[in-house]
């Protein structure tokens, strides 16, 4: 079975801990994205799976076998590199055939399989060219072709689309997803682009400073972020994170104070168990309803900057003491600069994070 299991994997470079106690399992046919800002340890985690870095502690189990001590060539994996890593002196066809050569297949068999993947990835025309003579998008497809030409235990992608321009990125995202869905292998994709992760992954593992902050389906990490970091990292425009004082809970509403306002907000009932103290409110820009007047459960702010984004309009609003609140409203809703806004957040989308940054949720 094509599966990956990482158990308590840690990687240290000298005294620097790049990856700390990472647990992650990828089922056969599942695509997991490692998502995080640069330097968060996602590529190191991928390289540990590949065997290009040795895990300092923990187990790397691929296809049910512990592979910590095996070099990459013995792990039977396929990987697509960020900069493609094509062999510069070999033609596109020879590049794709390389893994098969190492497997010791006959030349007829190799040619057949190379032609097959070249057909899937539309590379038939460029098989005889050198990597330097093909376009960026084609190089990327060659790298993918070289990975899928074999029948490996699992697929690893390191920032596969980061070098492509926006349009190519869109089309490649679809193509890679289509190719992967036909292969039913465990796949790990490293990316720092949340859109890439949200669109391609079955599950997303969000990393920060060497730790996995949350693992969940794209829907889950967006709708139920486990902590402040995940909340701030997923979603554009970014979630509003408001530092506030929690004062108590009554009638299903939490009394919170921030920026000289006292607001009663409908929140998750689990907040009732919280002791009064500092919290962070997380409300997505699209979770606000603009109402005509202050009704005690509204957040009051003044529209300061209006950015029309086409279908929607992004408003940067400012509270009395100057906290920035981003609000997205429908295009039809006309708001003028300087206008006072009364905002009612949707209770289901109002996240309360305790002082330690963890979400308070039933």
């Amino acid at each position, binding site marked *: 079975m094509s599966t990956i299991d990482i158990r308590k994997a840690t990687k240290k470079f000298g005294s620097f801990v790049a990856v700390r106690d990472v647990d992650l399992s990828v089922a056969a046919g599942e695509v997991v994205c490692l998502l995080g800002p640069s330097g968060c340890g996602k590529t190191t985690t991928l390289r540990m799976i590949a065997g*290009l870095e040795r895990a300092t502690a923990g187990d790397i189990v691929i296809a049910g076998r512990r592979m910590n001590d095996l070099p990459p060539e013995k792990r039977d994996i396929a990987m697509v590199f960020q900069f493609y890593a094509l*062999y*510069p002196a070999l033609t596109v066809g020879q590049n794709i055939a390389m893994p098969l050569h190492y497997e010791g297949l006959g030349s007829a068999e190799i040619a057949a399989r190379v032609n097959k993947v070249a057909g899937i990835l539309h590379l038939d025309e460029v098989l005889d060219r050198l990597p330097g003579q093909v376009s960026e998008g084609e190089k990327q497809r060659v790298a993918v072709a070289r990975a899928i030409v074999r029948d490996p235990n699992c697929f690893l992608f390191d920032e596969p689309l980061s070098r492509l321009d926006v349009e190519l990125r869109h089309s490649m995202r679809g193509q890679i997803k289509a190719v992967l869905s036909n292969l039913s292998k465990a796949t790990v994709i490293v990316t720092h682009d949340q859109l890439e992760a949200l669109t391609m992954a079955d599950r997303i593992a969000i990393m920060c400073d060497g730790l996995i902050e949350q693992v969940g389906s794209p829907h889950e990490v967006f709708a139920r972020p486990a902590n402040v970091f995940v909340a701030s990292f997923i979603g554009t425009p970014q979630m509003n994170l408001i530092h506030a004082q929690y004062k108590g809970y009554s009638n299903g509403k939490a009394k919170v104070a921030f920026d000289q306002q006292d607001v009663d907000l409908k929140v998750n009932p689990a907040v009732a168990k919280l002791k009064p103290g500092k919290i962070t409110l997380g409300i997505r820009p699209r979770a606000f309803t603009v109402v005509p007047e202050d009704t005690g459960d509204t957040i009051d702010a003044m529209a300061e900057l209006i950015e029309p984004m086409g279908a929607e309009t992004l408003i940067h609003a400012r509270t009395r003491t100057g906290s920035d609140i981003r609000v997205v409203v429908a295009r039809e809703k006309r708001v003028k600069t300087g206008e006072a806004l009364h905002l009612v957040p949707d209770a289901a989308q109002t996240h309360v994070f305790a002082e330690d940054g963890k979400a308070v949720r039933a």
Partner: protein
Amino acid sequence: MADIATFWERIGLRRAGGVAEAGWGRTLAAALISLIYFLPVLFIIFTAFKPQELALSVPPTLSPTSFFGLIPDQFVFTPTLENFGSVFSRVMTTGSQPESTGFDLFFFNSIVIASVSVLLALAIGTLAAYGFSRYPLKGNDTYLFIILTTRMLPAIVVIIPVILMFRAAGLSGSYSGIILLYTAFNLAFTIWMMKSFFDELSTDVEDAARIDGSSGMKVFFKICLPQVVAGLAATFVFGLILTWNEFLFALLLTGPDTRTVPVAMNQAVSSGGRGTDWTLLAAIETLFLVPVFVVTFFLQNHLLRGVTFGTVKK
């Protein structure tokens, strides 16, 4: 003014704005400067073809032909190959038959000793450089510095211990001795040079090769080495020139059978008590130039890439 500017531009001595092909003016200036640098070598080569009595004539003869009357007759000499013949065989004592001078052996020695030791250093040094580059030791830089220090001392400083060691080991006068010494001599340079080439390579391709199923050895030979051919060529030529010209160690550590050309040249021109035979010297030097010239000529494309390596970022 505009006309003058365009004239200078046209012959290429003034920048016409932007990057353009060099005009004739610049090409000519470059050729002239190159010629000045090349003059001493040219003079030696001409001298090799002169009759002995014209070697030091004043005014000097400058050309083997008059270029259809362009050069006055007193500067023209009639070329002869006599000097080249006497490099290999000539009359040693007055009145006797010409004898072999042994220079065929000395040329053979120079070629074998220089090429074997440089190739040996290249083989060992490239492997070492790859190790230093890819599998750094604790204190990697210290090791590299220690290797570099072997090139900091002038040869003359270490010559006495080296002679004593060679005598004790019975290596004096043998091929293996001098080859061993030159190999060691070239190693530091080879390691540093090749390490910088390996450092510049993207390790992604090597990683990709390993994931595709290639072992460490195959990665080195099939992926890395082909990418540093320019570096190998440049290192080879630099090492070859250095070793080819080496005089001091060769003088003290080779025997009559393993003598190299620089040493033999010195002995040939100063023997016989007739003063320096300049045309003979020039002939030896001209022949001495040929092998290095041939190697450099065939490797020139690689060399250019090798010596300009790293000046343009990928």
